[in-house]
């Protein structure tokens, strides 16, 4: 599904990634760990196709439409409401039964009541939940999640556990986290950056 060979990335003089080899099979679940500034986000952005490696090659066996990326930023417009944001992405991804699916996700992630509020007025955890809704909206085959548990409360984290377990084996995951124990049962591969 995802194959990288001798990946390297540098910003100007600074080398961030060095000779990374990856092979994530379809349905695989790669957990990326590493201290702050070790290049997890950089690697995940390359996996999602948001950045290009400066060395080596990466191959994705899926279309762009089948990739879901959750980064440190929720990638939603703060001046729009949750509904409007999901509507936009729903149209762009051509989701069938768009409205129903949006409603279902908002309800599942506990944002239904707040769906008409501007995202700017959301709490941090609510924004993260909205980011998750956005990522799951189009049922991507490849999910690239950068610290998806951050800012979530216990209920939210369990919800995410359940979502990951439900999709596990079916979708392919690349997930960066500082708490690998949490996703241990699902993991099929590990990559520790240093």
């Amino acid at each position: 599904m995802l194959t990288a060979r001798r990946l390297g990335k540098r910003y100007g003089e600074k080398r961030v990634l060095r000779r990374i080899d990856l092979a994530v099979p379809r349905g695989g679940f790669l957990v990326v760990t590493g201290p702050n500034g070790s290049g997890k986000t950089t690697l995940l952005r390359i996996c999602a196709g948001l950045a290009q490696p400066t060395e080596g090659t990466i191959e994705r066996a899926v279309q762009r439409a089948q990739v879901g990326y959750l980064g440190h930023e929720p990638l939603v417009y703060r001046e729009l409401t949750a509904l409007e944001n999901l509507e936009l992405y729903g149209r762009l991804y051509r989701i069938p039964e768009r409205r129903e699916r949006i409603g279902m996700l908002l309800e599942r992630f506990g944002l239904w009541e707040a769906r008409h509020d501007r995202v700017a007025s959301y709490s941090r955890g609510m924004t993260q939940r909205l980011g998750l809704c956005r990522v799951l909206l189009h049922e991507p085959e490849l999910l690239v999640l950068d610290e998806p548990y951050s800012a979530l409360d216990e209920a939210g984290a369990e919800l995410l556990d359940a979502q990951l377990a439900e999709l596990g084996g079916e979708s392919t995951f690349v997930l960066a986290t500082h708490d690998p124990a949490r996703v241990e049962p699902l993991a099929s591969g590990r990559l520790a950056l240093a």
Partner: protein
Amino acid sequence: MGYARDVGALARKDLLLELRARDTLPAMLLFVGSVFVVFHFALPGTSSRLATAGLLWVAILFTALLGLGRAFVPEREQRTFDGLVLAPCDRSAIWLAKSLATLAFLVAAELVALPLYALFFHSVGGATVAAVALADLGICGVGTFLGAMAVATRARDLILPLLFLPLAMPIVVGAVGATVVDSPGRYLGFLALYDLLFAVICWASFEYVVAE
């Protein structure tokens, strides 16, 4: 068909954002309105057609620059560019939608500017309106493209006018010509050609501007 729907969804988002934050249009209206009012009081009534046509076009150009400078502010401030880049739509749809949204603001500003111009200076004929329409297309298309390039650099607000003004010179020449002469056909044709040419370049190369 699908392409048009993508463009529609993206442009709708820009209009909605403007409706919420009212960041762009008021500044453009205020600017273009005050330029004309001030010039009206500053210019003696008998200015030449050429001078006032030049004025009209400079006003339009700078009003557009105002709008273009803000076109990508929401994406930058809220770091949502990644979301658009990842979306499955053709990347050129992002450019087209943003151009259309900017065009909408520019046209709205001109709906105020042209009557004011007619009131204070010279009457506005069909050729002028046609020139305005054609020039708007070129200005918004090229300007949005450069705006997206400028967002990627650090000195955004320096880069945009620096790149844009030289590229807009042909538009001004053609547009002033079309406004002033009696048979503006050639000038209008030139403007249309410019639009077509640059639309094709922008459309084909926007991909490389937004994706790394």
